[in-house]
């Protein structure tokens, strides 16, 4: 037992080292994971608006009506990276041509409303996903997460993590441009 305990710190260090080595793999982008939903239509869901800010909710019917591309951003007021990402999204909405829709994931309406009041609301529509059910339908693994949906309501791109670096912004813009080009 004692022998084992003596080796325990080394074993823990080795496990952490292996995980770190795996994590450094240059092919691993901490922000991208393939999604089974790519190339699939938007899943079925129907979310009410966030109470207290007015505006519209979000459901499957809002996609595939020929207008696009659409950026769907999953966010929450309790998520610190979302805060950093928010400013980038707000600027993108102003500068680029696309519709930004939001899913407010596992958040209290009052907290979300305060968050949006503070930072501004760049979203055209926001669905309030208090239970996280729609998040499951979209197959998200955390917040923030962002999807690009083309004019036919097909998910064409998924981005995990905050869109804060220039590289992330560039990939997202590329995906948006492609989704927009497919329409015409």
């Amino acid at each position: 037992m004692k022998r084992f305990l003596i080796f325990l710190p080394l074993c823990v260090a080795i496990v952490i080292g292996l995980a770190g080595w795996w994590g450094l793999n240059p092919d691993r982008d901490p922000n991208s994971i393939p999604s089974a939903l790519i190339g699939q239509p938007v899943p079925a869901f129907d979310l009410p608006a966030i109470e207290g800010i007015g505006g519209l909710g979000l459901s499957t019917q809002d996609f595939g009506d020929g207008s696009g591309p659409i950026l769907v951003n999953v966010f929450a007021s309790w998520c610190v990276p979302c805060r950093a990402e928010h400013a980038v999204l707000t600027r993108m909405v102003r500068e680029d041509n696309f519709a930004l829709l939001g899913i407010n994931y596992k958040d209290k309406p009052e907290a979300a409303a305060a968050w949006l009041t503070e930072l501004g609301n760049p979203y055209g529509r926001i669905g309030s996903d208090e239970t996280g059910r729609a998040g499951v339908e979209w197959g998200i693994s955390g917040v923030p997460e962002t999807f690009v949906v083309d004019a036919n309501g097909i998910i064409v791109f998924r981005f995990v993590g905050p869109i804060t670096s220039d590289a992330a912004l560039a990939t997202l813009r590329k995906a948006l441009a492609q989704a927009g080009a497919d329409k015409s």
Partner: protein
Amino acid sequence: MIPEIGQFALTLALMTAVVQGILPIWGAARNNAVWMRSATPSAALQCILIAIAFGALMRSFVVSDFTVVNVVENSNSLKPMLFKVAGTWGSHEGSLLLWTLILAVFGAAVALLGQNIPTSLKARTLSVQAWISTGFLSFMLFTSNPFDRIFPAPLDGNDLNPLLQDVGLAMHPPLLYIGYVGFSIVFSFAVAALIEGRVDPAWARWVRPWTLAAWVALTGGIALGSWWAYYELGWGGWWFWDPVENVSFMPWLLGTALLHSAVVTEKRGAFKSWTILLAILTFSLSLLGTFIVRSGLLTSVHAFAVDPERGAYILGLLVLSIGGSLTLYAIRAPKMDPGGLFAPVSREGGLLINNLLLALATATVLFGTLYPLFLEAITGDKISVGPPFFNASFIPIMLPLVIVMGVGPFLSWKRADLPGVFDRLKWVIVITLISLLVVWYMQTKGPALAVLAMAIAVWLLLATLREWSLRIKLGQVSFSESRDRLRRVPRSSHGMTLAHAGLAVCIFGFVGSSAWKSEEVLFVEPGTQIEIAGFDVTFEGTERVQGPNYVAAVGVLRVMRNGRDVTVLRPERRTYPVAQSQTTEAAIRSTPAGDLYASITEPANEDATGKWTLRILYEPLVGLVWLGSLMLVLGGLTSLTDRRLRVGSPKRKIPVATAPIAGE
């Protein structure tokens, strides 16, 4: 020319480090005194060379030499001088240079001030320290050279990230690094002791001042960083359990455990193997922090420019240093004798509980920080672990620790008389219970845990003061005799009292500001009135102010209470044209009872022109967080001046302990 001198000095420093890493330890193995003594001059030389390199880089920043890539990327000719200087360590390369400089300063300090350390232990320690230097100097020269040139030189630089242009933050990295890197010397001592195969109370006494100095600097660094986050980020919080914060907090927790276990090793010769392990792990966690921050392994709000190649190099260094030292530990530790026996209820027992809980808390934070990485490696799922996890797991570990902390100093070594201790503490217990009821009565809202935590902090504060008053027999003997005793009690005891009381004060601040804060976030126009925590606040509009390298919109908030003017708050929103970014300067009115905190941002929404988003908070007792931190730092410093840490140095009367912090 000057940057080339810096580069040259750095290369020479690497060569010196290689020599210092081989010759003294070989000499110790062969019992060659000359080779062993070579450690002292080479440690000093290495320190001087790195200081020259650091000076060269700082000069490039001060004169805005835009032929140096690092200066172009992190400075600007319009920037105030203080931030030009601070820009030296604002980037990955520059901060790494500061890192190695501090490493070398600690090495040189031990070489020059550690006159009483046996030659062989000193030689081995300095060699181990030189191995670390070699790793980091080569890392810098091969992957992140701060002196790279650019041609043609641009006309002006890109400016330092405006968030970092702040006095608190200019001082934060040096202090934090003194803490982080200071543990390196403790690590080197531990590895040297393992190689030598001998750990005794004397070893613990040599190591203690360095541990304490590193701990003091780390405490100060973390407190400054949190203070910066509080007033600069404009979120109104001081701790976010972000991975980068966690990696600085883990060495602090374990370093605290190390401070306490080293006392047992010193006084009773027990816990030897455990103290060595803590010394190794504390620095390992510092290294892990360096790795996480610089490799982009985890998602964090503050990160350096990420480069996988650098990450791989640091990981290699980690494998060698941590893996090597832990392997050595696994081989050598079983041979150490267990040391003095003690009853479960004793000073040793109390410190054992302290150590177990602190280690458990560290493990919890480590687990929470790395869990997303493990989960992703195993299942491919990505999550982020946030404050709910840490609050739910960390606080329940710390509260029992704080309870034990109140009793611990009353316990005597070997075997303590618990009923006697409680007899001396009976009034403290009564007052604590009364305060529990009072807090409960005053604050019906807010979590029950907060009320409990408040009472536990009262308990710690009173028990600490009680112990101190018993020690100087306050009230039992004449006042002048008490004063006499006050002078004769070892400084380390006063240091402990101050630090423990400081933690109690911190807890008041933690609990008050997180459990009972009031917060309003709203759109305001000139004339808008808000009521918060008994204050009537009127937003009177904004003014434009031109700064040296920014323009600011300054909100004017008139604060009244019961119809009387209290103050005018002026939160700023600064725009830095060169760096193309904005920062928030919160306006804070601090009183002992709490802070009224305001920050403004322009609404992102286009419809709301002329309106501003105002965030206004009242955070009760938040100032106590920093007052308590200051007490922790002062407690550590007081303890450092203890005679005990200086005795055994008959040749020279240099206070070994105070030297490393004199450089702050």
